């Protein structure tokens, strides 16, 4: 499937608006200053995405929010396990008791995912002048293939936004992935065509 530079530019703009809002929101909630940016966006088929990451067996942490409306799909915030641990540690410190680590990690990442994914999907919805219904965010761990298959079985295309978190002079890498079908993508292209 051919995706034009113009379309990539529009995705970048929609996602940047959402990320900008999410950054401001997270700064209000968290006691630590956090900056977000999205240096690169790509649209890939599922096999190409899995091939490109070259991390078939690595376990990732992800927050998933399903959506339905003009088209169905799911949005993910994905971190390597190392990045997830760094992010949580930077935000809540090292004072967490051992028996609380899992709950704090999933709770913190879920809330960050909730704000970030709502900001990104909400910006897309507002720009397209449409409405999505969301599912409750869910924290998951697994290989990329497992995470995507568990979340939205019909995934054929992914919009991948590399996302950098800057916290306390640390750079933590993550990804926002919007999972959809080819048909969903075509519906979104048409909706974008109406507003530009």
């Amino acid at each position, binding site marked *: 499937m051919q995706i034009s530079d113009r379309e990539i530019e529009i995705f970048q703009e929609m996602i940047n608006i959402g990320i900008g*809002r999410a950054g401001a*929101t997270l700064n*209000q*909630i968290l006691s630590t200053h956090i900056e977000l940016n999205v240096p690169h966006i790509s649209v890939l088929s599922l096999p190409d995405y899995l091939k490109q990451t070259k991390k078939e067996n690595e376990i990732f942490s992800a927050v998933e929010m399903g959506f339905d409306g003009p088209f169905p799909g799911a949005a993910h915030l994905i971190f390597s396990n190392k990045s997830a641990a760094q992010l949580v540690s930077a935000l809540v410190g090292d004072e967490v008791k051992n028996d609380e680590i899992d709950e704090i990690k999933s*709770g*913190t990442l*879920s*809330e960050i995912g*909730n*704000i970030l994914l*709502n*900001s990104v999907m*909400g*910006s897309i*919805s*507002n720009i397209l002048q*449409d*409405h*999505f219904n*969301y*599912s*409750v*965010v869910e924290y998951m761990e697994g290989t990329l293939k497992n995470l995507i298959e568990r979340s939205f079985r019909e995934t054929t295309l992914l919009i991948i936004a590399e996302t950098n978190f800057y916290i306390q002079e640390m750079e933590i890498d993550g990804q926002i992935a919007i999972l959809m079908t080819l048909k969903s993508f075509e519906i979104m292209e048409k909706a974008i065509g109406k507003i530009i």
Partner: protein
Amino acid sequence: MKHILIIDDSFIMRNWVKKLLNKENFNFIEAANGKEALEALENHNIDLVFLDLLMPQYDGIFFLDSIKNKNMLQKIIVLSADIQDTTRKKILSYGVAGFLNKPPKEEELQRLMNNILV
């Protein structure tokens, strides 16, 4: 003492709301979903409600639809991460006191609270 019901499945957001209001003398009651919240409404004399929308099992819309005493709607401030214009319009049509995106600005929150807690 005023009784404030905080309905949110995220303990981080419940704690955050409590922290924001800590300087005031409030009694906080917490609920993680709409069903727990309805039970809390029956068991306490609630002065103000902070309501999240997206929660497992029984969500914020379920809670709004289930409220029998319609005067209670005017004591509800919806706090949601959902920034869609369509969601804001739908929620305000219930007649709630306010709809604020998470996290609300302190002055906005204070203004709405002052209107409710007269």
